[in-house]
């Protein structure tokens, strides 16, 4: 171990050429794939969800790639290497939370939404307010998560490129490059490209950590107990690393963190969006099952990697400051420069894949919910929606780069835990209530989402994580009046409670709409199907909804693909007026739903737009009916407004 000295100075490990070489290889390969798949990125559904055409195993692997961030790979291995058992607690919360997604959320969500969480809420509530709320919480969660990843990227990549820690400019440049690459993936690749990046990354990450794990175990005759025994000899904490208590001293705080982790997973917007990339609820289930096995296996590897780093690296190598480097340093110790280069490339890939997933989710939420659903009241054409999504992705990239540069050096785990706490507080109660509670209404949803976000973020601001302790973000000031550094224990129950209170105070919910949502969510009737690159048969331009206000938005270009029309057509009318607007959407838009009122819709007409072919009002009244070739367009409920047609 001549490397002792070097290891101790973690910023001089390995060869820059090797690190950079593997990374460039990864970037080139993934860019080629992204550019290739982007050729078939024709429609809005393609851009947001890859045309709903991924298989369960593909999507499950991509979910693992989306979920296993740098915090999972570097953070958990580092925490175990430093504190032993306590680091393991994170892995368990992250894994067990997936059961919530599997049992209660994934399939039902898949059947009731099209692109975003806002779609699901808009199904039976007043569309504009709930979309605004869903987009707000999606953007907040995504940005926190994103900035955390970017800040982590700066530090990690600087290590691997041997940019000194005090060279802020050099690190900033690294963040700019990472942010720029992420934007390229998202802009050109859309969800298809992003998904392939995530699949490749998941493969690399699992393979890399499996090799390291086997290598560590091999050194000790495949005896985990021996690894840990050696670790206790090597650690300054001795046998204390075998049990809990080293890292978390505040017991209540730990329970709070545990709650946020287990309940946050099923509320993370970039995970929820992945359920729409598969063609059916059954595939959504298979994806989660794949994800659980892959993620669970990976966390078992991190246990070995963490204790392995503790056992094999010279005592004192891993400190609080460089704990994220435990896995790369272990790789160097075991396999030298080449292994370090490989693991470094894996770490780059990890960060890129996660930030790309977050960016596409945030941009979809803005374009689909805010721009199309709220600003244009459902009358945006799918094309313009995608343009807005791309522009938003660019904007989010810039914000993430700026935020990453500013937050560089801050505690990354803090930001990620915040994102989980916000997701658990703002999103989960609303999702569960809207899927399972008949009475739940718009008021309840708004109270729960906004209340959850507000309580959660405010508690964090006044927590010891931000001020008042030597390890907080602002160690010099002290306005920490709330004792817990993770607010989950308070904010999650509060958000559930607010959802209940708001519902009781609000108007009656719409029983018919709930019936429809429940039937659709359980049976999959009318759910979006996969779109395969459709060659649309020429149809006459349909008029969309006839009814009232329908304006076919479709602008001229549509020529060839009439389908869209419907989409565009929104009813313009004001609320109730639009009769036909179909009910579903209509409602969504204008509301009503929750509240009693809404509905004057004549029943008769069929929903207009469903995207599709559902005849716009009245059956078939105008539209010639063409066989839909794209089932998606047929049935979807809310989304319909804007439907997806092939956009371009």
């Amino acid at each position, binding site marked *: 171990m001549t490397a002792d000295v070097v290891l101790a100075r973690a910023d001089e490990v390995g060869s820059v050429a090797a690190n950079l070489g593997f990374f460039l290889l990864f970037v080139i390969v993934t860019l080629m794939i992204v550019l290739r798949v982007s050729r078939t990125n024709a429609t809005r559904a393609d851009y947001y969800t890859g045309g709903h055409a991924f298989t369960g195993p593909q999507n499950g692997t991509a979910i693992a790639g989306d979920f296993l961030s740098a915090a999972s790979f570097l953070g958990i291995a580092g925490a175990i290497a430093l504190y032993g058992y306590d680091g393991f607690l994170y892995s368990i919360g992250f894994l067990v939370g997936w059961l919530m997604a599997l049992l209660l959320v994934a399939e039902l969500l898949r059947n009731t939404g099209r692109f975003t969480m806002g779609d699901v809420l808009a199904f039976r509530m007043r569309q504009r307010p709930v979309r605004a709320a869903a987009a707000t919480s999606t953007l907040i969660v995504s940005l926190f998560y994103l900035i955390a990843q970017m800040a982590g990227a700066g530090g990690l990549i600087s290590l691997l490129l041997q940019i000194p820690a005090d060279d802020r400019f050099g690190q900033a440049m690294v963040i700019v490059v990472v942010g720029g690459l992420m934007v390229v993936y998202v802009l050109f690749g859309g969800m298809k490209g992003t998904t392939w990046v995530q699949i490749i990354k998941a493969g690399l990450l699992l393979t890399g950590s499996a090799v390291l794990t086997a290598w560590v175990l091999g050194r000790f005759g495949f005896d985990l107990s021996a690894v*840990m025994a050696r670790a206790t000899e090597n650690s300054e904490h001795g046998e204390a690393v075998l049990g809990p208590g080293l890292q978390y001293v505040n017991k209540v705080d730990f329970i709070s963190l*545990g709650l946020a982790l287990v309940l946050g997973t099923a509320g993370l917007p970039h995970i929820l969006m992945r359920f729409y990339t598969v063609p059916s609820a059954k595939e959504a289930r298979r994806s989660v099952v794949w994800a659980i096995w892959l993620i669970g296996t990976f966390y078992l590897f991190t246990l070995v990697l963490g204790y392995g780093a503790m056992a094999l690296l010279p005592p004192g190598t891993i400190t609080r400051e460089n704990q994220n480097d435990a896995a790369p340093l272990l790789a160097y110790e075991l396999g030298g420069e080449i292994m370090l280069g490989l693991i470094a490339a894996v770490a780059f890939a990890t960060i890129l894949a996660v930030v790309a997933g977050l960016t596409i989710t945030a941009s979809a939420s803005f374009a689909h919910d805010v721009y199309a659903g709220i600003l244009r009241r459902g009358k945006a054409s799918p094309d313009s929606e995608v343009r807005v999504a791309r522009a938003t992705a660019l904007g989010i990239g810039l914000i993430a780069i700026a935020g990453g540069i500013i937050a560089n050096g801050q505690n990354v785990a803090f930001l990620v835990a915040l994102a989980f706490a916000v997701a658990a507080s703002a999103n989960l109660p609303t999702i569960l209530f809207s899927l399972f509670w008949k009475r739940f209404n718009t008021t309840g949803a708004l109270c729960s989402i906004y209340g959850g976000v507000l309580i959660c973020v405010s508690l964090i601001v006044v927590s010891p994580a931000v001020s008042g302790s030597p390890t907080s973000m602002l160690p010099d000031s002290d306005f920490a009046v709330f004792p817990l550094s993770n607010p989950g224990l308070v904010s999650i129950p509060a958000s559930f409670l607010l959802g209940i209170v708001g519902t009781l105070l609000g108007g009656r919910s719409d029983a018919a709409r709930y019936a429809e949502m429940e039937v659709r969510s*359980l049976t999959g009737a009318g759910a979006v199907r996969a779109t395969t690159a459709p060659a649309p048969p020429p149809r006459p331009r349909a008029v969309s909804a006839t009814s009232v206000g329908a304006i076919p938005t479709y602008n001229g270009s549509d020529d060839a693909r009439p389908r869209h029309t419907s989409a565009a057509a929104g009813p313009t009318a004001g609320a109730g007026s639009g009769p036909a607007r179909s009910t579903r959407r209509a409602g969504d838009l204008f509301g009503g739903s929750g509240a009693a009122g809404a509905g004057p819709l004549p029943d008769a007409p069929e929903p207009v737009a469903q995207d599709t072919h559902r005849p716009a009002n009245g059956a078939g009244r105008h539209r010639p009916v063409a066989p839909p070739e794209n089932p998606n367009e047929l049935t979807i409920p809310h989304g319909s407004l804007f439907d997806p047609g092939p956009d371009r």
Partner: protein
Amino acid sequence: MSSPSPRSTGSIDYEQVQASPEFQELRGRLRRFVFPMTAIFLTWYLVYVGLASYAPGFMSFQVFGTITVGLLVGLGQFVSTFVITTLYVRFAEREIDGPAAELRERVEAGMAGNGEVRA
């Protein structure tokens, strides 16, 4: 299926479908599985978190070698997660997918029959 409901959505009366015995049976079967299972895994997880917080001595007890109770309980969380996942998949494939597909066909046939959807 097209009796007008207060806000019917299209020609399908979803309330009628919702009230049908087949649907009620399907929903009940699903809920009777997922709700208790959720309660079980959450309780088991909270027990684990509670033990780690309030019984560190117990969790640090070394069962054999350096393998502690805490490690076994932690690995037990992995095992229970994998087991529940497998049980759920088997349950869903056996008891949910079939009836759900049948209902779905009926609902969609209703849509089509009414000219609502597919031509």
